[in-house]
């Protein structure tokens, strides 16, 4: 059906004025930077919260200067109360998992680079894109506001298990309006992510440039695409869960609360609900969520490694299919968070097998990276160091999964520091390394300036060694049975372990402080860095064929056309050992696929 009217080719007009350029921007690049900036704020906040936690665990009676003024009930005189510790823990987890790990690698870099890498002028729905960021920002503000209400933030963890999270303030401090704000924030976050995923999927399917078949998209584009498919379905389940939780809390329903509960001497007026229902709904979202957190990093690291190695991966197709398998399997494993939850023990075995099976595509991915490093010529710089560090962390974090995937071993290791070590290594370190690698790699393109390489490498070495010092000992603590989510360790059992905790805390402070080097580098380079060329890394994908920073419509008046995949490295090109994706020149000396 043809329209009679002629439509403008641009998806939106060039931005005019400060508000349109920097605030309510429709430009995917500005939106990507806004998401990244939000993630940066959230990560520093989350890190400071973790410092308070680590400080309190080792020096429980210490008066932390200034904290008494910010939280007079939670930390009177600067001494953290048990409930405030749990508030810190809850907000740390919520900020990090949602506002950092779902934002930066996916919404941040994905928004910025997916349209460019497929040769599009912008996302398919720029208005929805803008709405998705602003919804996420409002969600962030709602969440953080819980710090400033009299009763404080919730104490039920980022997992908010019912009935603790559902019965209301009878169950403890922060579980009144604090928990309400948490649930509302997460519900809003879901809406923002759904709008974002919608954009990513439609854009990838329909706005690719001529010659850009799906298999010619860069691996990180594939990662963003697969992540957005997972996110679409996962957040579509979390949103109903949060709504049902809010109804239990505010409208007297009993989705998650059974009858006969006596909380703080008060018999609760609920009946018929199921606490396990919350866990099923939450983890049905929650497990795919962790793959949402890691897959973009897998994609970014692959992208950076290929450029740095000056050769393609052994097989990009295998990498892509492995990511797809992980995405597919991620829907079948959620019960491994619930092995000892009281669900049918036979289900536990059923969940254990796909969980163990995910090891296979994860191993394929790791072996492809390792195997590709053979015979390479790795150019070492901050970006490639963080990418290589990611591979190391992915292995370390992954092998502890071998243990937790088995229900019999989980009987002993569940809810110990072993679990905390596992997920911090894969999410709290590996995924962050992916973000950092992407930052060092793409900063020149986004800002037009180079970051300081010396500072970048100092940042890497302290962070790489430091995060191993922090999180490797968590596994040892778990093996002896150190329970998690304890605000203090008050008994004889724990006394011999305190030196380990001290070591961890000190390592955490040093490593955290080193992140200020990164922050300084980021800000200083933005204004004073060396001017960056169009293609400082001699890379092939489409983002390196446009100016640094790109114009508002990415490709100007050109419509890019691509002629092959973006892995033409180690070949004889007119510009060197590579041929750009949009170059029609003949590729000599290519690779067996």
């Amino acid at each position, binding site marked *: 059906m043809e329209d009679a009217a002629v439509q403008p080719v641009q998806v939106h007009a060039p931005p005019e004025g400060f508000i349109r350029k920097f605030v309510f921007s429709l430009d995917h690049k500005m939106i990507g930077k806004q998401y990244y900036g939000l993630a940066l704020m959230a990560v520093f906040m989350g890190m400071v919260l973790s410092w308070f936690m680590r400080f309190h665990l080792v020096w429980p009676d210490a008066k932390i200067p200034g904290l008494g003024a910010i939280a007079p009930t939670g930390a009177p005189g600067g001494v953290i109360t048990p409930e405030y510790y749990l508030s810190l823990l809850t907000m740390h987890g919520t900020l990090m998992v949602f506002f950092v790990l779902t934002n930066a690698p996916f919404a941040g870099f994905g928004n910025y680079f997916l349209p460019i890498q497929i040769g599009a002028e912008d996302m398919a729905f720029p208005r929805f894109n803008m709405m998705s960021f602003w919804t996420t920002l409002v969600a962030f503000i709602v969440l953080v506001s819980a710090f400033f209400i009299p009763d404080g933030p919730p104490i039920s963890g980022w997992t908010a298990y019912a009935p603790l999270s559902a019965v209301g303030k009878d169950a403890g401090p922060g579980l009144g309006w604090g928990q309400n704000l948490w649930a509302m924030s997460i519900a809003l976050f879901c809406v923002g992510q759904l709008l974002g995923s919608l954009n990513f999927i439609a854009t990838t399917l329909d706005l690719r440039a001529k010659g850009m078949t799906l298999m010619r998209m860069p691996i990180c584009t594939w990662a963003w695409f697969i992540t957005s498919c997972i996110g679409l379905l996962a957040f579509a389940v979390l949103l109903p869960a949060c709504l049902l939780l809010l109804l239990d809390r505010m409208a007297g329903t009993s989705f998650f609360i059974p009858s006969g509960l006596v909380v703080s001497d008060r018999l609760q007026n609920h009946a018929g609900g199921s606490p396990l229902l919350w866990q099923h709904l939450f983890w049905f979202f929650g497990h795919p969520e962790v793959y949402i957190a890691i897959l973009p990093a897998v994609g970014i690291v692959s992208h950076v490694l290929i450029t740095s190695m000056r050769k393609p991966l052994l097989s990009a197709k295998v990498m892509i299919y492995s990511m797809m398998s992980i995405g597919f399997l991620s829907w079948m494993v959620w019960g491994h968070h619930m092995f000892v939850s009281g669900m049918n023990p036979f289900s536990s075995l059923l969940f254990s097998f796909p969980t163990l099976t995910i090891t296979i595509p994860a191993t394929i991915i790791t072996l492809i990276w390792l195997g590709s490093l053979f015979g390479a010529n790795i150019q070492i710089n901050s970006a490639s160091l963080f990418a290589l560090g990611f591979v190391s962390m992915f292995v370390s974090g992954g092998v502890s999964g071998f243990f937790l995937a088995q229900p019999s071993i989980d009987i002993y290791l*569940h809810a110990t520091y072993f679990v905390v070590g596992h997920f911090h290594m894969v999410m709290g370190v590996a995924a962050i390394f992916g973000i950092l690698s992407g930052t060092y790699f793409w900063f020149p393109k986004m800002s037009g300036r180079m970051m300081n390489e010396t500072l970048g490498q100092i940042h890497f070495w302290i962070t790489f060694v430091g995060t191993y010092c922090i999180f490797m000992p968590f596994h040892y603590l778990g093996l002896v049975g150190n329970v998690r989510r304890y605000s203090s360790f008050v008994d004889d059992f724990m006394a011999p372990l305190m030196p380990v905790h001290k070591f961890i805390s000190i390592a955490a402070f040093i490593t955290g402080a080193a992140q200020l080097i990164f922050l300084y580098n980021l800000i200083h380079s933005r204004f004073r860095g060396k001017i960056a060329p169009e293609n400082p890394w001699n890379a092939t994908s489409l983002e390196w064929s446009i100016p640094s920073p790109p114009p508002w419509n990415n490709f100007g008046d050109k419509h890019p056309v691509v002629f092959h995949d973006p892995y033409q490295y180690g070949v004889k090109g007119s510009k060197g050992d590579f041929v750009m994706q949009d170059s029609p020149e003949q590729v000599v000396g290519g690779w067996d696929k």
Partner: protein
Amino acid sequence: MGKFFGVILVLITLVSAYPIVTHKFVQPVDISTHGHAIDEQLADTMAEAGLAFVGAQLLLAFFVWKFSNRKDGSKVVHLPGGAKLMVATAFIFIGTEVLALGVLGQKAWADVYFTAPKPDAMQIQAQAGQFAFYFRYPGADGRFGPLHPDKIDEGNQNYFGLDPANDVEARDDIVTAELTIPINREIHLLLHAKDVGHSFYVRELRLQQDFVPGLDLSLHFTATKTGKYEIVCTQLCGLGHYNMKAYLNVLAQDEFDKWLKDRAAEQ
């Protein structure tokens, strides 16, 4: 810098492996009848995961050491065998390994969850509530009195909400703050949650199970060594979660009988 990466990574790998290889952090001694299967599974997994960890990190270290910033002008080449070799390795080695772990590990799980308690197992009820565990023995009649949540009165030590005035079975129920049991006798522990989710964890028993409000869950086990062991709550239950614990006392049979008689007299 590439060589430095290789060296640092080797050091990290060796330092990480050292405490494991020298058994510096191990589970406390197993006092259960089913626990050895779990411990064996854990040891097998540690060996395989350990080998995978060390192997992968050393390979990464070596490749970065050898193949970074090369100045010799040689061409970049692919690993012989290519992606096919990597996929085959993943399927054959890792696939077999993890599935073997899964299949073999079933028995340890089944020992805990797929066997029914023996008919003569001693029934004890455990109640978890913010922030303490209480235990109830059925007394001479061998039956538990019904629970009435509206009658719970902590001030008068009616933790379970019993109504001995109206319920005959409740009159001889024995309520204690410690889980005292005889050695080598199977215990059938009934789990009841009073308010929110909690969990029962005794490291030495190799047992962990959530208390779920509204669900009747239970565990059965046999303790094989006398002594005093910690029961800790492992499901976040509120501000007192860190301090929510009780003790498991395993006594010789005659000492237990005396203890129970003393407690009955006190009720």
